[in-house]
């Protein structure tokens, strides 16, 4: 089955509901991490790194815009309303992505963990039954390739440099580990698989992810913290920390002055 456009998807309400639900999970991940990335502007370890990180931030927010546009085509509100005016409890991003940037080590480790997951996830719908989504996946995969290349390079170099850098990287991994659970959680997964919206299960992707990360941790001379924990709080179901509430407040500061105004 291939569904070429939104109007056809909408004619099957169960399909459309699963698709919409999935797109929110993707859009919110990208928006939140892109926003956090952009907070590094002017603060990176060197100017070259600053320029690079900003390109990644723009890619991520661009991807969020793509997913929000698909949602709008499926009958949801306009992309700006979806990005700026939904309360925290309706956001579906993984918890890890909403946390503040902390230090460079935390930001690098988090980004690499997310990028490798995102790459697997994009591959899982690069032949999706929903054609607008699979077409987008092809384009985004080209960009994500460079994100993971960039972040794995940082990861391996900072780890293998030893000393303070290695300590900070190990500390970042330990700090991130307990927050990982819901990253791999896919809400309504059975439906998505059944409809061919995605074509690989989260369990199978998670296994690949662990294998890749294990390899990189080893290559960087860092410490593997043990089994990846299960879901505690679940961002995919709207459970979030105060970090996300603050992020949404900041992001919407101008928008909410007058949501009817054109900005």
């Amino acid at each position, binding site marked *: 089955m291939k569904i070429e456009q939104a109007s056809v998807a909408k004619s099957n309400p169960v399909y459309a509901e699963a698709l919409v639900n999935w797109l929110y999970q993707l859009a919110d991940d990208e928006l939140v991490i892109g*926003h956090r990335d*952009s*907070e590094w*502007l*002017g*603060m*990176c*370890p*060197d*100017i*070259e790194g*600053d*320029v690079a990180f*900003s*390109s990644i*931030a*723009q890619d991520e*927010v*661009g991807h*969020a*815009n793509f997913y*929000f546009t698909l949602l709008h085509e499926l009958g949801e509100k306009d*992309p*700006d309303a979806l*990005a*700026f005016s939904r309360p925290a409890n309706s956001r579906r991003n993984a918890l890890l992505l909403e946390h503040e940037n902390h*230090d*460079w080590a935390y930001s690098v480790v988090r980004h690499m963990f997310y990028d490798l997951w995102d790459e697997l996830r994009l591959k899982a719908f690069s032949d999706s039954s929903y054609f607008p989504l699979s077409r987008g996946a092809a384009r985004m995969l080209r960009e994500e390739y460079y994100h993971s290349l960039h972040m794995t390079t940082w990861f391996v*170099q*900072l780890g*293998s*440099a*030893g*000393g*303070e*850098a290695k300590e*900070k990287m190990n500390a970042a991994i330990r700090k991130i580990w307990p927050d990982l659970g819901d990253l791999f959680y896919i809400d309504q997964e059975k439906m998505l698989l059944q409809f061919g919206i995605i074509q690989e299960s989260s369990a199978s992707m998670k296994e690949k992810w662990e294998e890749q990360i294990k390899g990189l941790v080893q290559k960087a001379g860092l410490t593997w913290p043990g089994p990846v924990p299960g879901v505690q709080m679940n961002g995919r179901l709207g459970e979030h920390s105060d970090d996300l509430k603050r992020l949404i407040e*900041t*992001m919407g*500061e*101008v*928008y909410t*002055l*007058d949501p009817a*105004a*054109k*900005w």
Partner: protein
Amino acid sequence: MLTEEARFQAFMDRINRGEKIEATDWMPEEYRLLLIKLIHMHGVSEIMGAYPEKEWVPKAPTLKRKLAIMAKVQDEVGHGQLLLRVVEDLAAPLNKTREDLIEDIYKNKVKFHNVFHMEARSWADAGLIGWLVDGAAITIQASLLQSSYGPYARVLKRVCAEESFHMKHGESIILALATGTPEQRKMLQEALDYWWESLLFFFGPREITPAVDRMLYYRIRVLTNEELRQKYLDKYVPRIQSLGIKIPDPQLRFDREKNCWVYTDPDWDRFSRMVHFNEGPKSRERVEMRRQAHEDQRWVREALLRARKQAV
């Protein structure tokens, strides 16, 4: 063997013929020092110029504006990088490195433009910076395309092309506000009221200072501060007026007899102190941010050097 005097004369002949001087060419010490001073300040201004708008990156009110302002601030940092690369070459014989050029910012050894000491208080300010501050920067930089120093002139080609995008980006934000709600128009008027004086100051004092005089002599620059300010007023006064907002200077008019704009002088003394002693409303805070960015991440730069050594 050329005498010192003949070598200098040959150099000046090249400049007067309109030739470009390259990084590896012989140049008088004075020429080198003037270039370092000018381009270092320019590069650092681009980097410090990222901060006022950076404050509005997380708050941009639509997804498109968010993407645009991120790209815009990224460009500014990128210009800083290009310009510092030019200074690094010039300063290499003086044993100055990139690290020194950045540290000079928080050791108060290099100045940056007055506008980047000011507050960006609202989204209108963020738009106005893109439109009128970048507009002012283009006016100056376009004239520097003719600079006698080749590497600087070439980098400026790209800088000018990108700055004109920024000007369009700012103009687009401003147009949305100017045609928006009464609240949005009020926000815009307040932005212009706040920024006008510092925009006039941006071009520097009316009189030709000794340093500017030497830069004109070497054709590092080709126009005076006042010539540049007049060009800017020519271009932007009608544009601002067409939006129906009021320029906060009752004396401002075009004098047909003298063929120039008459304007109320900015508070030269106040702005000059701001630039020389970091006494502006945001100077200290932003210099501190730059210090933090550089010092707090020193471990990262050191680790990369170690990792590269190990890889060899």
